[in-house]
């Protein structure tokens, strides 16, 4: 038999196709009404509800004596929730669906590398998470008059916590996508995980009001740390007093998220397949 040597594919193709995938994925994302609502707009909806429901309440005062409104108090929590939803929830459900509806099988038959596929997915998550955070911050500042930090260091903290959080959640989402056995069960498997995590991590309930043992459990996962990091940016310095250890622990965020990121990468490397062979 004659062996025909295939022409080599051009270099840089993996990245180029990854970016092309990202554009394709982002367009698909915004065309799906349910993901736009439950993933993209959900934190904004929750922020609005909290702001309106607790409009008469005070969530402590700034050192200058100004009251901290519900909107200001919940903005960091909703930013953290957005990172979790856009990263973990969206990614895991999306991939689980694509596994079961044949999208991955089709892609597996094309000269698209898995790396390009993931660049596309992570690109989609990054762009939607950034748009979501921007929307939350703009609405909070304009509609609910939340004072935003003016110090550049605060925004630097925001940037790295946000990017580390999105990346970690996205990678963990890929790892979790193997958990549901079918696309239909994907939401039923993933949403409870995401919901429980939000409740114990101080997203809907003030973290300082949870019993210490529950805080300790929550602090094993990245979400509580992301919310902690966001609070350090958007709440007055004096609020550090009610945190675990009585201070903002930015190193802790980097360590816990970093460990989960590595775990997620290993799980992804070991478990992700285009298709379940011989399933």
């Amino acid at each position, binding site marked *: *038999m004659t062996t025909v040597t295939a022409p080599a594919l051009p270099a840089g193709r993996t990245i180029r196709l990854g970016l092309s995938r990202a554009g394709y994925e982002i367009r698909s994302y915004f065309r799906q009404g349910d993901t736009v609502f439950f993933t993209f707009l959900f934190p904004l909806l929750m922020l609005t509800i909290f702001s309106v429901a607790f409009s008469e309440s005070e969530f402590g005062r700034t050192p200058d004596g100004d009251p901290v409104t519900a909107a200001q108090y919940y903005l960091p929590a909703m930013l953290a929730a957005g990172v979790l939803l856009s990263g973990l929830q969206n990614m895991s459900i999306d991939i689980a669906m694509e596994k079961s509806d044949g999208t991955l099988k089709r892609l597996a038959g094309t000269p698209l590398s898995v790396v390009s596929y993931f660049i596309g997915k992570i690109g989609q998550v990054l762009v939607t998470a950034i748009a979501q955070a921007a929307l939350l911050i703009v609405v909070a500042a304009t509609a609910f008059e939340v004072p935003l930090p003016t110090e550049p260091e605060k925004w630097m903290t925001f940037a790295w916590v946000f990017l580390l959080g999105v990346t970690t959640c996205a990678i963990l989402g890929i790892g979790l996508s193997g958990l549901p056995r079918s696309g239909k069960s994907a939401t039923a498997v993933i949403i409870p995980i995401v919901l429980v995590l939000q409740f114990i991590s101080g997203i809907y309930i003030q973290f300082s009001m949870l019993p210490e043992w529950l805080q300790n459990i929550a602090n094993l996962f990245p979400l509580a740390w992301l919310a902690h990091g966001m609070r350090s940016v958007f709440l007055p310095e004096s609020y550090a007093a009610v945190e675990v250890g009585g201070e903002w622990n930015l190193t802790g965020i980097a360590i816990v998220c970093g460990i989960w990121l590595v775990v997620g990468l290993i799980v992804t490397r070991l478990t992700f397949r285009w298709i379940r062979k011989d399933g």
Partner: protein
Amino acid sequence: MTTENVVEVRALTKSYKGVEAVRGIDFDIRRGETFALLGPNGAGKSTTIEILEGYRDRTGGTVSVLGVDPKHGGLPWKARLGIVLQSTGESGSATVREQLRHFAGLYPNPRDVDEVIAAVGLEQKAGTRIGKLSGGQKRRVDVALGIIGRPELLFLDEPTTGFDPEARRQFWELIRGLSGEGTSILLTTHYLDEAAQLADRAGIIAGGELVAIGAVDELGGADARIPVVRWVEDGALRQERTTEPGRLVAAITASGEPERLEVIRPSLEDIYLELVGETAAASALTEGTRA
């Protein structure tokens, strides 16, 4: 004449949890040829085609597709294949043109997007989201995605399921065109007229084994093609197989006009059913002996 094989399959076996779905299959597909793999559901057709596509690992035997073992087929290998899977249920929020343009970008030397859309007859639907298309139209998108990369070897797994008769004829024209351009094609289908129309050669799989292989008009051997003369005599149905039906008919009509006289040349479907039926009967017999 140089004959180069794009597919070589030798002693291919595949077991699932101890059950042998494919039990020792051999066949070749020559470059430029259209080869049809026929057989009833569960016979091992899809398992075989998915092993060739690299979707499944074989249990035994050797397989070469475009000179590469599909187990180790990398991206440059995939760039030379076109795969139309049996059926897909993608949600499809992209339009037909967006989807084709995106997939064209994955290949080093793709076909022109609008030409492919026209070739599958979806010009009117180019701007429609795939999720909003009918089943037959979605299937045409599948076919379009299979050929957009200008494949050397095209796998078509039951491509015309859900097509109306006119769409099937258009599809046949498209496949003849691709074949004319030199594309090698492996087709599985339940429509034997489709295989007869398109394939140069065919193999029939039943019970995990290849029970017949050959040129479509020679399949089953010369004996299977011997015409049958059938008529009614004294109220009883009579039939006789003969290589000289004209002579037989003349002999019958010599004694008067017979009732319901017909000369039947076995179609591919008749031959297929006979071959598959024999296997089913044989395996039923084996099962019976075992019990």
